């Protein structure tokens, strides 16, 4: 099959779906190709927290804030229940030193115009009576959100499809062709089922982006970083907010090769509790490691001792696309005309999905020249 498109998006996860959603509003002929089926990779193996507290000051926080705003708009725009909740989050401090760090974090968030509320030990117990009584305190971030990543992906794709986006599933990209002469602009995407002529390609293949852009000779510095999540049996209302320990941010920022574990908990729509989190570099292996789920369970028991009798019914592991500076790669690649990247979000992909789709679609239809866009420009890794 031969067909034509204005833009081909590679990857049917939440980032690709968001790109499709925002581009579909601009009246372009969009095709999205997905190796398996929508949300079959990282977007079905992650948690659904939309956080600001893990963002560094400056551009990253600004990007996160924009995305938070877009998620709130999407709740109105998307004609589907995707588990959207204005749940807020509580960051927990085990000791006073951590609480002090939390206070600084709260100040930073407040300066950006979002809410943050410092909780002492007593206030924390009042909000979350099931937490261990020895915690020093915490910070409530009331504006943080929660979504169901898989449903959100499907909802954005469904909306895009209604506006004419074509989705090719079971379509692995075999080749990306470039014009033989001149600027060697991209001219086609080849899958085992179709050859799609297109001047523009967005690589939104997450962990697998490295292999995709290798086809046009680009070496991406993205590495898979594995994360595990445990699913506890239904306990609706056991915790009132998504919770995460203060150490979460430093485990994310750490580039250590060994296992990093930090407590994260959220209640899903069905009432099950998701418990995380872990980060480790172990290549492409997606099998669940018993040692890692043991470590997560042990950490969760420390913060929620009375959850000890609740049964763990399953676990899963997914790969997050890690980038060396912990920032996503969003925008054009100068050396390959027609190629745009939307990848490298590691564990922040769900939260940053809307702003990523928005930025990429702006890059494609208008030249974007903002400080914000410059901070995430992929060319920061390809100095010529």
């Amino acid at each position: 099959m031969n067909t034509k498109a204005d833009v081909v998006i590679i990857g049917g996860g939440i980032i690709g779906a968001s790109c499709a959603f925002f581009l579909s509003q601009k009246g372009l002929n969009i095709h999205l190709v997905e190796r398996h089926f929508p949300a079959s990779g990282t977007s079905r193996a992650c948690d659904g927290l939309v956080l600001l507290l893990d963002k560094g000051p400056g551009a990253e926080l600004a990007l996160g804030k924009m995305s938070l705003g877009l998620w709130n708009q999407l709740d109105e725009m998307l004609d589907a229940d995707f588990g959207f909740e204005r749940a807020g989050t509580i960051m927990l401090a085990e000791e006073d030193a951590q609480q002090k760090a939390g206070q600084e974090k709260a100040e930073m968030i407040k300066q950006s115009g979002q809410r943050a509320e410092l909780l002492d030990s007593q206030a924390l117990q009042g909000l979350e009576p099931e937490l261990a009584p020895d915690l020093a305190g915490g910070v409530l971030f009331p504006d943080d959100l929660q979504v169901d990543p898989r449903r959100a992906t499907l909802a954005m794709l469904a909306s895009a499809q209604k506006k004419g986006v074509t989705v090719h599933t079971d379509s692995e990209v075999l080749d990306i062709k470039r014009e033989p002469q001149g600027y060697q602009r991209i001219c086609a995407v080849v899958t085992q089922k179709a050859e799609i002529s297109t001047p523009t390609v967005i690589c939104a293949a997450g962990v697998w982006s490295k292999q995709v852009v290798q086809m046009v000779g680009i070496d991406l510095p993205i590495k898979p970083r594995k994360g595990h999540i445990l699913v506890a049996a239904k306990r609706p209302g056991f915790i009132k907010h998504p919770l995460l320990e203060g150490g979460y941010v430093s485990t994310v920022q750490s580039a250590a090769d060994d296992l990093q574990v930090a407590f994260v908990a959220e209640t899903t729509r069905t009432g099950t509790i998701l418990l995380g989190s872990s980060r480790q570099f172990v290549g492409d292996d997606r099998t669940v490691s018993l040692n890692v789920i043991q470590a997560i369970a042990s950490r969760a028991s420390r913060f929620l001792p009375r959850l000890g009798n609740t049964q763990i019914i399953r676990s899963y592991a997914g790969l997050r696309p890690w980038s060396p500076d912990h920032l996503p790669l969003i925008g054009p690649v100068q050396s390959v005309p027609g190629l745009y990247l939307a990848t490298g979000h590691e564990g922040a992909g769900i939260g940053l999905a809307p702003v990523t789709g928005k930025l990429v679609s702006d890059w494609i239809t208008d030249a974007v020249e903002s400080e914000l866009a410059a901070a995430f420009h992929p060319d920061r890794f390809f100095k010529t």
Partner: protein
Amino acid sequence: MKTTELAVAGAGPGGLSGAITAAQAGVQVTLLDEYHLPGGQYLRGALQKNHAPAISRTEARSRKLLEQLPSQSIDLKTGTSVWGIEGHRLALHSALGTEWLTAKKIIIATGAREFVTPFPGWTLPGVMTLGAAQILAKEHGILPGKRILLAGSGPLLLAAASVLSETGHGATVLEVLEATHPLTWMNHALALQGNLDRLREGWHYAKAMLRKGVPYRFGYAVVSAEGTDRLTSVIVSKIDRQGKRIPKSERALSVDTLCIGFGFVPNIELTQLAGCAHEYFPECGGWVPLTDETFQTSIPGIYAIGETAGIGGAYSAMLQGQIAGLEVALELGKLNEEEFRQAYLPIKRQLGPLKRFSVMLNALFRPNPALDALITEETTICRCEQVRAGEVRRAIHQGAHTLSELKNWVPVGQGHCQGRTCGPLLARLISSETGRPAREIGCFRPRPPVKPIPLGALGRLPGEDNL
């Protein structure tokens, strides 16, 4: 960390046989079972009360294994579930806590679970599986109700009917409804050769039915179970040889208990978790691990026997256990080649006719896909998350053509049972709606813990630092 030479997961006839064979050859064996007594489902209740003469060689022999067990130097750990497996390391859970067990060789003999094709009302209290009713009768000597109807297909229907009819206590088994037609059985008569013992068991059960005068009707199925809070009646209908309802043949029966079952599905969670290669063989009951002639899976040192390796009955499981036990002893240097061969060859010869027989049974009693027409849009498919057939069929029509993809649309396989109940059923539905073969539809991929364990117990499992 604890170590052993051979860990056997499952102490049914197959696991018992494997463990005893290996132990007798001098292998250090740890035998694990999640129930608090050994014997598996086949020998359920045998330890407490089965002092009557055995009805078949199979029963006699499996009971003998149980009797032999205390005199063997086998570390028996009952009430212990295996919830994870990583390389040759097993993660165990019991009332005493969680622990690791590392084994040089592992035999997985986790048996099978029952398969039920649903119909409206099948989740009402008062409706249960044949196996559940049999446990009540065999182990506790009680019956689940007063007016009992049995329906479904296959050998367990006959066995359960016999056990329930004989338990008595003022309860009545009204009728037994077998979905297949005896005429179709004739095509399979050749497989009976060499299977006298299995016929003997069947005849024993049939005699009990005749004695009690319980009608055993062929070509009937339950169309719906009725009742508001619990079962009060069922509608039954004649079905033709293609499994289709015969119009105007319905009648209502006033019952308080309905026991249903359409055969078995192999429990392959542990072989899946271990990374063994699997294939879909309908004549084996569905997805099974691929094994060689000594029942070794594609992962060296991990063996799968009995129902786990393909539905084949207790006798076949015992022979397979013996072979795997001998092979383990050979591999660990407890037997030499000659000793192995002398013991192995006579057992191997017996397996041929057994295999023919089980393939015949599985083909004959495999629930006819036409029975899926009884599943109305309102029928619950996933009991954990209350997903109805209508939602599943809509998802299939919208493009969910594998079990994995179906999870994107409906919350199946994500509840408490982790898809053990609905998985094979959903695969059938996808197959009948799309015409896709079962092997392309796939099966749910289990992840640890394969059986739920408390968070606190998981957290207390000795971590990496303490190994």
